[in-house]
């Protein structure tokens, strides 16, 4: 056996028995590095007589190529071995808790319900407006056909504001969002088609009343809008809101100073196993007040009641949210209780969207 063959066998054995990447690399350097044994054999080519060069060169090249191939495949084997070992070593107990970032926020049911309703009315062509919480007597009462001292004012338990100057007529915390309707009519010319929403205030606190709550009201004024349009609008809106096709509604005659004729609206419902089922059954639940805008209200806004007419309606946001989402207690809406907000609130992503039925 030639020395060359011996060297090849020796290195081959070394490669086959190498157990780690470091040892393998040493073998590679010792054989094929600048000062390696095989490199040494290669360098000998130049010193040989020309007639030997070709066959010697061929032989040593074959050895080099063979060793390189062997090194490569051994390298792959050892790399895999090393990776396998690393994977075993890196294993963790995946039942350990994940990173516990408090990143799940929520949107209040009041905000959600307002956006749902505005969306429904916007779809029917209603504009949206808001206004201030503190109102003057004119916008909250007088313009809405509540004469001073009238018993209808007693229907609202009003919070009065201490006047800035003694003797001034006291402002009030608005008792309804109707002053927004007045301000809207003052600023716009008919046809009017709008909804407004916001905080309202009444001096009452018990299981079913809080001194602050939210309303949404709607107003439509032109030359032809009649009571039938009011019925159609509310039927469509409430059916959409509760997700019940042809929601049964009952329109009862009632009284509000700012509408004539006036009506209260009940939705059909029933109780099953202690849970409210909306849209079926023989019970009625009041959800809304409405009517045809009183001629005096139109007059107070500078409109001609001989020519113009229309409807207005108003509803409690919390009440609708409670009915739809099964929230049992009104007072809890205002507690800022994180447990409540996370439970009854909505994910940021749950934006009311009729494409997905929300």
């Amino acid at each position, binding site marked *: 056996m030639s020395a060359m063959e011996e060297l090849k066998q020796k290195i081959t054995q070394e490669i086959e028995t190498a157990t780690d990447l470091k040892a393998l690399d040493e073998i590679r350097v010792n054989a094929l590095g600048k000062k390696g044994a095989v490199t040494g054999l290669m360098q000998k080519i130049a010193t040989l007589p020309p007639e030997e060069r070709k066959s010697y060169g061929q032989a040593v090249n074959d050895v080099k190529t063979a060793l390189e191939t062997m090194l490569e495949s051994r390298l792959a084997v050892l790399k895999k071995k090393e990776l396998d070992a690393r994977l075993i070593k890196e294993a963790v107990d995946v039942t350990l808790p994940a990173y*516990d970032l408090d990143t*799940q926020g929520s949107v209040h049911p009041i905000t959600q319900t307002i956006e749902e309703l505005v969306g429904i009315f*916007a779809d029917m062509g209603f504009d949206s407006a808001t206004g201030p919480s503190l109102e003057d007597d004119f916008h909250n009462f007088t313009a809405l056909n509540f004469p001073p001292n009238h018993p209808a004012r007693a229907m609202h338990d009003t919070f009065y504001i201490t006047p800035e100057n003694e003797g001034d007529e006291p402002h009030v915390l608005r008792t309804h969002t109707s002053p927004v309707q007045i301000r809207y009519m003052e600023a716009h010319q008919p046809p009017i088609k709008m909804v407004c929403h916001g905080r309202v205030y009444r001096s009452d606190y018990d299981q079913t009343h809080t001194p602050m709550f939210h309303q949404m009201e709607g107003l439509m004024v032109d030359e032809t809008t009649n009571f039938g349009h009011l019925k159609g609008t509310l039927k469509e809106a409430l059916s959409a809101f509760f997700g019940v096709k042809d929601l049964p509604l009952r329109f009862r005659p009632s009284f509000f100073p700012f509408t004539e*004729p006036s009506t209260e609206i009940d939705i059909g419902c029933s109780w099953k196993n202690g849970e409210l089922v909306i849209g079926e059954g023989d019970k009625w639940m009041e959800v809304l007040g409405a009517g045809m805008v009183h001629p005096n209200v139109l007059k107070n806004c500078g409109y001609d009641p001989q020519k113009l007419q229309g409807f207005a309606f108003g509803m409690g946001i919390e009440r609708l949210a409670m009915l739809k989402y099964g929230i049992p207690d009104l007072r809890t809406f205002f507690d*800022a209780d994180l*447990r409540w*907000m996370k439970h009854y609130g909505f994910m940021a992503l749950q934006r009311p969207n009729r494409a997905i039925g929300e």
Partner: protein
Amino acid sequence: MKFTLGWLKEHLETTADIDTISEKLTAIGLEVEEIIDRTQEFEGLIVADVVECGKHPDADRLNICTVDTGSEKLQVVCGAPNVRKGLRICFAPVGACIPAWPKEENILKKGVIRGQESNGMCCSEAELCLSDEANGIMELDTDVPAGTPFALAMGFDDPIIDIALTPNRADCAGIRGIARDLAAAGVGTLKPLTVKPVNGTFKSPVGTKLDFAAGNKHACPYFAGRAIRGVKNGTSPKWMQDRLIAAGLRPISTLVDITNYICLEYNRPLHVFDIAKLDGNITIRMGKGETFLALNEKEYVTDENDIVVADNKKILAMGGVMGGEECGASAETQDVYIEVAYFDPDHVRVSGAKHQITSEARYRFERGVDPAFPVTATELTTNLIMELCGGEPSEMVIAGAEPEWQRIIEFETDYVAQLSGVDVAVNEQISILETLGFKVEKKGEVSLSLIPPSWRGDVEGRADIVEEIIRIYGYDKVPSLSVRNDSSVMKSAFSPEKKRTADMIRLLASRGMNEAVTWSFTDEKTFVDFSFADKKKVKIANPLSSDWDTMRHSIMGNLLQGAQRNASRSILCGSMFEVGPVFFGQSPDEQPEMMAGLRYGSQTLKGWNTTQRGYNVFDAKADVAVLLSLAGLNPDNIPISTDAPSWYHPGRSGVFRLGKNVIAVFGEIHPALCEKYDLDMPVCGFEVFVDNLPAVKVKATATKPKLELSFLQPVNRDFAFVMASDVPANKLVRAAESADKKLISSVRLFDVYQGKGVEDGKKSMAITVTLQPFDTTLTDAEIEGVSQKIIANVEKQTGGTLRG
């Protein structure tokens, strides 16, 4: 308003059952709140007779009775001291329910008492829930046969109807008014009101004078009354008491009960004075500062705004508001004077509101009683008094005259369809109005001339007429019409600014914050901690409690209180925010909308794989930064000052301003306040002045600006500078940025260091500068050129030198 079905039927001829009547009442606007059927309370209980009564052989206090139930004779053991042979009793046979017993055990079982069988129970008033009387069994005075249901024998079989009355329907504060409405709606017919005329046999010894100034005669324009002598006041008959009790009133004496009865039946409050207690004639006039002892046993000082009914010496009643204590009828009363006056609603309102008196009389007068009714009411009252108390009537006394209440409303019948959307035939319109008491004159095919009845002061114009017609015709017959029209689609209802606020809410929720809604008001103490000294304080004049008497200047106090409540429930980390108004004054522009957020504790709980980091000023700044970015602002370009409100940590808070307007404040909450609110953990927060944000730029199309991307590799270079420790970081960043605005795409500060290697009073800050070429790859020389410019700029603007 409560009344019984039987009472209603005194005025309404009908065969309709209670359910039909109840449904119709609600359908015409007299909403039924409850039907109270008292027969159910006493189900199974019967009238029976004690026919034998003897001592129990083994118990001193017990008796063994034989009770005749009409159908059988039963042995019953009874311990009542008053049980005796011949007594009529309310008997509960085995299986009946005892009203006073708890629900789960109220069914009576057969018993054996001291060895003697007992087949039922003789009931006391307490056991029947009729009174507190428990010392003996109830003794019945009735001649119905034994076995008659107890409820029937007692007149409890007349169901009570409770309706919610709207303020416009004064006429329905009287039972006859309700009957009239039902008749118009087709539930039977209204019985005619028959009033037996009274022949006075003598001239009334008391006269009445109306004494008002010329401009104020309408305060009380009309009076009717008379004297009746020789009456006997006692206890009113059972039928009257039953109806008064059902209506929620307490029977007092026959004379008083008669006035209440007339009041409920006809919506006509009136008074009966004891003539023996009067000094001279009666004058109805305005008050003059006299003191008046009212029926509620309180004293009031009357003034020139109160109508008073007075004799020569004293005030007898505050007109339309409340009667007096001194001259009412008593058991000794023999001669009485009936007073039926018409008082002006406005006067009664003002008086009642000023003295804060609520009464049946005020309720009715301020809503408007029938101005044409005083004479009829006087006759009705006289007849009832003579029937129940005897006596001899005087001639009637009249003062003033019936006020002009007639008014004509010209009405076009097609206005019904115009306003309501439903066509009601002219004949039907006329018929409805006439049944309601309107005088209708047909002027042409579609024109009517209407006079509303005297009892309907609420009907003013044509819209009221439409309501009258369609509420009787039926709201349910109005068709539902759509308001959709083609021109109304494709438009956002929210204004761009309102939409932005809605987006900001979602953005905060997506950052782990929970939206709260808290009161717009707070208490004075909290207000003081969260108020601006240079802004006005708005107080509620009539707060529900002192906890809620001041309008808030800042939402932060409410959020801190919320955090306190949550932390006390061992929720040690939390984030919440609120959008809502604050109040710097009373005009609309002094009630800006704010968005406030608060984070307390840390973002992570104690964990096996993390170190806990408490919230700090930079968490609040991050919240503000994303909100401002959403508003189209670059927070890095907005100057920050350190004059945050007093509730923030003075050294760990900042203020963003646009011009002189504050747009946001942020920081850690002042440690003293954290302690005050028991928050033993880091707390930070922010407030964004939503109304001060720039108006949203509305683009004409939804197209986004073109994205400019460079295909060339960006280059990052890090620099560290040493400078005075009070140089703000953003000054360094800005200095670097300004070195080459075109080439430098970002400057990011990533390290601040003070300590070993940096001399006292100085700090080292390190930045990464990113260079983004757009045309050609940067050469080393170009990069070096920019670097030198950066170093020079920083040195010039901050005094900082490159750290060696």
